[in-house]
């Protein structure tokens, strides 16, 4: 017998899949010589419509597909997050691939596929669906990463990401099979009641380590971070932005659903491991970031460091910790998007991602310099920007759960990170410019930059409503 499906719960994914199919057909029938970027424009309109639609659906709740697919406040929150990310990444693509012509169309289709994958991850409460969702996201990312066929770095990045990604998928599957062996299920709620009533054994521990490897790969936690710097540098910049914001957030949903949800019963035994991984990840990311000369690599290592900060919330394992992760990611979204928008506009004009070439940016474009400065300050976690309050909640969560030492390690890391972020700020504001030709910023890009800057400031100053939203999107049952 076939289970009944509640289509209203998966309305978003269904709509996105239909849009994708429509765009595929359109891509085939469109005359090859059209100069107008139809797919891009339609994607934009569709995304805008979906966001409006999604904000009317705040009350969606329930499970479907035999309990493998859930709509809860956390799923809603992260789907909204991914849609907003999508808008920015589509806009970046339009700017970045201006010169690419029709080949750009397939890129849009892959982006849609990645979006569908991310939205599915947010809703998965079964290992099989989770695996499929992660593969949908990752496989489209492999292709997008290697999209610049003539660029050696892009090919290398794609290759590296593919090999390590496939390895982590293998670990993930292997881990799932172990868990199935132990619990006779792939459902998170079944596993959750199993972990609540049974002690952790060596057998299940091995499974958890393997699944953690997959989560670590997606979130860029040490020691599963090897791909980050090269992939961030080599991938087309919109893909880097997607990796650092969307894919990381998806990784954290995965981590939270699995390690705080399914394996919630064993969290007390795991918390110390998570705390240690968190401490090592942030320290490693920040220390290596000190020596970077390429802005995309710098943001790559900084992204590792931020994974470390975010893991503090998972180590705390409390409602406050999860709210901290949610809030932090929200601030991180606009912060990183602002940084990558600047990098894209800059690199389209100057063909360079070297930090040295950013010297004197403030004299070439006040807006770009200001946006990058705000993004850097927010990444460093200084008020009044979004990054500060995120770190504040996470610090509070770990101190509350008794990891004072982790909070102090994080405080030390903030000092290290302030150094390299401010060195970039110094370059753009203090150092003399190599070239004084102004950098023109198009109207659309200006609008997006201003939106990202206003969002960073708004989240950082009027924290209340955003914190409420983040608190609402906490897994049920956490305290």
């Amino acid at each position, binding site marked *: 017998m076939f289970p009944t499906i509640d289509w209203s719960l998966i309305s978003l994914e269904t709509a996105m899949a239909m849009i994708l199919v429509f765009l595929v057909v359109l891509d085939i029938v469109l005359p090859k010589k059209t100069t107008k970027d139809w797919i891009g424009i339609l994607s934009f309109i569709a995304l805008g419509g979906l966001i409006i639609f999604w904000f009317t659906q705040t009350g969606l709740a329930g499970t479907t597909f035999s309990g493998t697919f859930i709509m809860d406040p956390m799923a809603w929150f992260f789907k909204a997050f991914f849609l907003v990310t999508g808008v920015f990444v589509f806009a970046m693509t339009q700017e970045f691939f201006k010169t690419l012509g029709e080949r750009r169309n397939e890129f849009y289709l892959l982006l849609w596929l990645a979006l569908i994958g991310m939205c599915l991850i947010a809703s998965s409460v079964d290992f099989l669906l989770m695996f499929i969702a992660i593969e949908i996201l990752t496989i489209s990312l492999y292709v997008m990463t290697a999209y610049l066929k003539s660029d050696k770095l892009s090919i290398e990045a794609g290759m590296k990401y593919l090999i390590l990604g496939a390895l982590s998928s293998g670990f993930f599957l292997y881990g799932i099979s172990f868990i199935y062996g132990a619990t006779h299920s792939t459902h998170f709620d079944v596993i959750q009641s199993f972990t609540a009533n049974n002690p952790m054994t060596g057998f299940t521990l091995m499974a958890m380590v393997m699944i953690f490897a997959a989560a670590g790969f997606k979130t860029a936690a040490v020691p599963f971070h090897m791909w980050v710097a090269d992939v961030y540098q080599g991938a087309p910049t919109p893909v880097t932005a997607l990796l650092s914001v969307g894919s990381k957030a998806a990784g954290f949903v995965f981590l939270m659903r699995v390690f705080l949800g399914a394996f919630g019963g064993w969290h007390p035994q795991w918390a110390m491991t998570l705390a240690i991984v968190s401490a090592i990840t942030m320290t490693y990311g920040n220390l290596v970031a000190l020596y970077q000369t390429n802005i995309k690599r710098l943001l790559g290592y900084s992204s590792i460091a931020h994974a470390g900060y975010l893991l503090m919330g998972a180590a705390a394992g409390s409602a406050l910790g999860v709210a901290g992760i949610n809030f932090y990611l929200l601030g991180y979204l606009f912060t990183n998007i602002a940084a990558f928008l600047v990098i894209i506009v800059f690199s389209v004009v100057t063909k360079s991602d070297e930090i040295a070439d950013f010297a004197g940016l403030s004299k070439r474009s006040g807006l770009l310099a200001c946006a990058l*400065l705000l993004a850097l*300050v927010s990444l460093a976690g*200084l*008020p*009044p920007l979004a990054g*500060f309050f995120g770190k*504040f*909640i996470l*610090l*509070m969560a770990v*101190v*509350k759960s008794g990891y*004072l030492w982790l*909070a*102090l390690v994080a*405080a*030390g890391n*903030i*000092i290290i990170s*302030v*150094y390299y972020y*401010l*060195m970039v*700020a*110094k370059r753009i*504001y*203090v150092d003399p410019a190599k070239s004084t030709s102004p950098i023109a910023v198009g109207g659309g890009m200006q609008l997006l930059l201003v939106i990202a800057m206003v969002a960073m400031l708004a989240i950082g100053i009027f*924290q*209340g409503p955003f*914190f*409420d939203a983040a*608190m609402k999107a906490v897994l049920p049952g956490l305290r």
Partner: protein
Amino acid sequence: MIAPNLSWILILPTLGLVLLCLIPASNERLLRGIAKLTVLVPFLLSIWVFMAYDHLNGGFQFIQNIPWVTPLGISYHLGVDGINSLLLLLLGAVSFAAVLISDSVKESLKKFYILLLLTVISTYGAFLSLDIFFFYFFHEIAAVPVFLMIALWGSARREYAAIKLTLFLVGGAAIALVGLIALYLYSGAQTFDLVQLQRYVAIHPIPAATQHWIFLLIVLGFGITLTLWPFYTWAPVGYAEAPTAISMLHAGVLKKMGAYAIIRFALQLMPDAAHFWMPIIAVLAIFNIVYCGLVALTQRDLKYILGYSSCSHMGYILLGLACFNTIGLNGVVYLMFAHGIMAALAFALTGYVEDKAKTRNLDELGGLLKCMPFIGTCFMMAAFASAGVPGFANFVAEILVLLGAWGQYPWLTVLAVFGLVITAIYLLKAIRLGFQGPLPQRLAGLSDTTSFAAKFPYVMLLALLIVVGCLPSIVLTHIASSTKVIIDSIK
């Protein structure tokens, strides 16, 4: 008297800041005018707040309280008592003088004023906030503008100085942040509101063992801001290389936020730990006074002398904090004000000399009294104030601190008095080398300030020092109304 609305002290200059952002950079006169107005308005409001504060009733007044992040107990809570109403006055005077003397800045004026005003507004916010979260929030906003201002408009080693100062301050703040979060969590009051916390802790004190480490984190963190020995090394180089306005504001006001935070969050909320740690801090304070004073003796750069001198004088503040009696704490708050005005005045005068003579090295200066009688006289008076000559506010403050410390730490007090002698030596040396003796040929053409407008900032600061020094009761009644509560809660 109508009660002032404290939010205007933040809102009006913020509007000025926005206006400043919208004016084209080419319109210099308008930029300067708006910048001056933007600091004058909160200064006048601060004077009003200071006059309107009723010291007979004491406590926090003109309170505004808006819930901000309710689940975490964060609220936008403004209010003043005798301590921060005085600090507002200090900030108002110093920031106004700092903007006035910035007429000598010519490069990228718009950016300069935007960053300077951001620093000033955030400091106002910190002093006005009665919420621990918002205090930290505002206090930390200043970090980036100060960094950029030193790196952009500083002197020779500006980049090194900027990053060193910022790393120390952000580092101290990060440590203090962990302490403040722990204070929130372990007090059990579920609020960042200082007033509620005070009430709650008075009834349910935090366990002594917990107090110990939280206190240490907070005092260490904010101690770095207050140039606690041996974490003072950022200050001399930072102040020396910074543009004059930032040297004035930072040495005069911003570092006092450290002392303010220690009084409010550490001493008052964790008395047990205070009795345990403060005697150790008192010993470090003597290192501040004597060691930094001796280092100042060896300097040839006028701004470095003032920088080390400033670190040395923070020792008196730290010593006063360790006294646990009203006289000592009154002295601390008095000294925060007196030193703030004096340091701002001294840095402003040095900035003038450097701007004209293109050097601050005492070996290349000399006889400046001959060509700049006004500036030279002001500098001598600032030096006398700093050395604790009666008639200036610093004398009253230092006497109070020493009297307060005498009962607790007689030997340390003797050493602290010795520190005043050191101050007198290095400042007299600076005067002799820089302002007396023959005027080098190279400096013969230098001119003094001529117009009243140019003299005004110096006269204003000097007048404050003398008036408050001769009539201590003007500020002492305010201070005493609030310190008594704190001392009572510590005992």
